[in-house]
């Protein structure tokens, strides 16, 4: 199901558990990461994503479980005996050393000749797009530049694994967007296996080859950005990534659910007839165009409020189908103009079966 599956796993995590006293930060986690892959650990704060990263780095060793890197068991090794480069949210650049010295720091420990070190430092600064900044101190650079230097330092020794711990969180939005592309591009060019921890779903969706969604010390879903966004495995994933409408309902018979006064078709696999369920659909998948009478999965809705989002409008829909809650739907600016939709407008909307997800009701 995944393009990378035919490769051999580069990093193998088996039954990893981390306890801090009574608290279980990681609960029996298993995961395989492939060579050259860019994997994001995504989840809310306290979900265990940073703990997992620090266990992989050996900074906070797991309580139980095995980690293998490139076929070697590294479970108990201290960080200095593992093969990785790391970039932190705080950059952790040595403030009293110039950019050159920071980047050269790891190279010096390899007893390389001086001109070779200098050449490598220059190469790396070119790579991160800061060729002229070598003699400056970190404090003289902007946040985005500092982060790129931190990246260059981490990559200097050509580690087999690059670990990024929320590398973009401390930057402002514009710089973050640009760096996102740059890091991803660099990773693809160098082909270094990379793990990034983030709580920012957009970051994960744009950068990762695969996303590992975590919650309460467990892996909830592993998949490509498209899979995780399009077919979220649980209501938690659906809610955490992107915007999702949840409407309570009941399975009427296989392939049909009833919601409020309507029934419509969707995939109900895994749920028995009569089960209380939650129907989920993303706002952009609710459409109001090209609806003819008698179409399936069409319900009546009324627009309670309308928010202008720039390229589209986000409508707050109410209607007999939606029960007590409101449902969000994204309408193109074009549509709103053409149909002169406004607050109080009534219109039929379609909830296409292929976009409807069904989850077990969280109350049960």
């Amino acid at each position, binding site marked *: 199901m995944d393009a990378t599956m035919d490769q051999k796993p580069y990093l193998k995590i088996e039954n990893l558990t981390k306890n801090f006293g009574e608290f279980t930060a990681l609960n029996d986690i298993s995961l395989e990461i492939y060579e050259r892959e860019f994997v994001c650990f995504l989840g809310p704060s306290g979900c265990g994503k940073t703990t997992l990263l620090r266990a992989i780095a050996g900074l906070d060793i*797991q309580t*139980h479980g095995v980690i293998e890197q490139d076929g070697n068991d590294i479970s108990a090794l*201290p960080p200095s005996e593992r093969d990785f480069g790391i970039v*932190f949210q*705080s950059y952790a650049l040595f403030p009293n050393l110039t950019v050159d010295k920071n980047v050269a720091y*790891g190279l010096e420990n390899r007893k390389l000749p001086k001109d070779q070190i200098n050449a490598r430092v220059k190469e790396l600064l070119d790579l991160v797009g800061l060729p002229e900044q070598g003699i400056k101190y970190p404090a003289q650079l902007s946040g985005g530049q500092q982060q790129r230097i931190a990246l260059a330092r981490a990559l200097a020794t050509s580690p087999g694994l690059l670990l990024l711990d929320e590398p973009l969180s401390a930057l402002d939005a514009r710089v973050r967007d640009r760096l996102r592309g740059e890091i991803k591009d660099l990773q693809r060019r160098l082909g270094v296996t990379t793990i990034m921890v983030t709580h920012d779903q957009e970051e994960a969706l744009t950068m990762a080859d695969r996303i590992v969604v975590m919650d309460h010390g467990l892996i909830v879903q592993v998949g490509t950005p498209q899979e995780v966004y399009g077919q979220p495995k649980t209501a938690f994933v659906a809610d955490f990534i992107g915007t999702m409408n949840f409407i309570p309902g009941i399975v009427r018979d296989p392939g049909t659910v009833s919601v409020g006064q309507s029934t419509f078709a969707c995939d109900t696999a895994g749920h028995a007839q009569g089960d209380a369920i939650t129907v989920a659909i993303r706002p952009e998948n609710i459409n109001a165009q090209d609806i003819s009478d008698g179409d399936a999965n069409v319900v009546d809705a009324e627009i309670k409020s309308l928010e202008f989002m720039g390229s589209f409008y986000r409508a707050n829909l109410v209607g007999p189908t939606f029960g007590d809650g409101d449902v969000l739907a994204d309408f193109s600016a074009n549509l709103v103009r053409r149909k002169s939709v406004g607050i109080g407008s009534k219109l039929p909307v379609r909830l296409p079966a292929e976009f409807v997800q069904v989850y077990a009701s969280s109350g049960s």
Partner: protein
Amino acid sequence: MTDAMPPAPTNPQPIVKEKLSRDDWIMRTCMIIIGLFLAAFILLPLYTMLSKSVENKDEVFIGLANYIEYFSTPALFLSAGNSLTIALISTFIVLIVAFVYGYALTRTCMPFKWFFKIIALIPLLTPSLLGGISLVYWFGNQGVANGLLFGESIYGPIGITIGSSYWVFPHALMIVITALSITDARLYEAAIALRTSQIRTFFTVTLPGCKYGLISAGFVVFTLVFTDFGVPKVIGGNYNMLATDVYKQVIGQQNFQMGAVVSMVLLVPAVIAFTVDRIVQKKQVALLSARAVPYEPKPDAVRDTSMLIFCSIIAALIICMLGMAQYAALVKFWPYNLELGFSNYDFDVMDGGGWDAFWNSIYMSLYTAVIGTAVIFFGAYLMEKGRGFGAGRTIFHMLAMLPLAVPGLVLGLSYIFFFNNPANPFNFLYGTLGILVIVTITHFYTVSHLTAITALKQMDPEFESVSASLKAPFYKTFFRVTVPVCTPAVLDVSMYLFLNAMTTVSAVIFLYSSDTTLASIAVMNMDDAGDIAPAAAMAMMIAYTCAGARILHVLLTHGLLKHSQAWRNR
């Protein structure tokens, strides 16, 4: 080690036991060595003293008999009451003066603040004995102003109280200034917006805001006065205090057991004060929110003028104390020949150690500053930045905190018991400059340790993680990054150790030999022998040295910050 660990009840897998890196081994070993040093040079001596206090002269265990004897001897027991009285009165006076003075420096627009700040710190540069000597010249039998006492004698509670208040004043002031500096201006804006009167604002905002600082200052002052030896020795006359009792029991009567008992009594309030202070300090931290807005005082003619008058009086008193000591040191033969000259600086013709004592002090202080700073900073680094080994690090921290609770006199006496024993492998240290350096380092360990820890905590905790990932040995990062970044704190620690080593009397009084007399001890001995003017001269030598060191420190720090401005400014 793979099969030794029992599986956790809920998890059938073995617990992963971390393999230690070479760095981990080196760091832990170094920390254990420094920890053992602290244990050997603080815990063991104290234990030896405790056991001495429950033995008779033939070193037979006699339980609490010594203590019973102590508490049933009115003369001895009375001293405890005296010490308590003086300490309480001094604490009361110093707290009020320090609070008003600190308030003037932080919360008013009084002019010449920098001047008053410098003057207030003068007593830190002099041994506590100097205040006593000055008082003798002011109010002693031949004093210039003894009429002001209306027949009361300066030798006794009055002298001790004034002398003690003088030398502990800067200690209290520094804490008060810190407490008054951390406030949120918005609280005052809110008070004004609610039309709160100034008096009410003072009692509902200002005082509660710095109450922990005041409590802390109170305990520090109390402990310092209660355990101080210098002032009562010089100006106490026949008024007995606990600290002088220890000295008399040990040096005068050679009654080591009773000296140990009095030391234990001396230790009690110090330990209580220490404990309360630690609790209070923890609460203080929570008070300051990161988003607080600094307070900027606005001019207020009446308040600023009255504060200027108050601070001028206090500053004048401090200058009078130092000035009189200087004058007395220069006067040829008080009070008969008031011509000025340097004859009193001719220490080699007096008993007490001569110029050698002064040079010994310089050497001792330099060794203490250099070795002490290296050991303390490195120890703090290992404790703060080491990986794992939580229990070891906690124990290390406790050992490092302990010296603050032990008065110098008690520490010094316990060293006699411990090192004077021929069976002790460290016995060779006894009577050397080495033991003076060691006792001074341990005596002043805690404050230095805390300064180092504070500086280290301000560094990014991930420096060590990054270094490990780059395969840099820890000592490379320590010397290339940690030490350069922490240089201001390192300089602070070395300055603190140097000043204290120059001025301390209490810890070293039992430990010097005829070859290792120190300047501060020479002051005491010359004063004891009636050579008060040379004692004043020697005390002034200490003051010049400390002032010089302090100026050097300011210049060094300033130059360093300027030099490293490129990377230090964020």
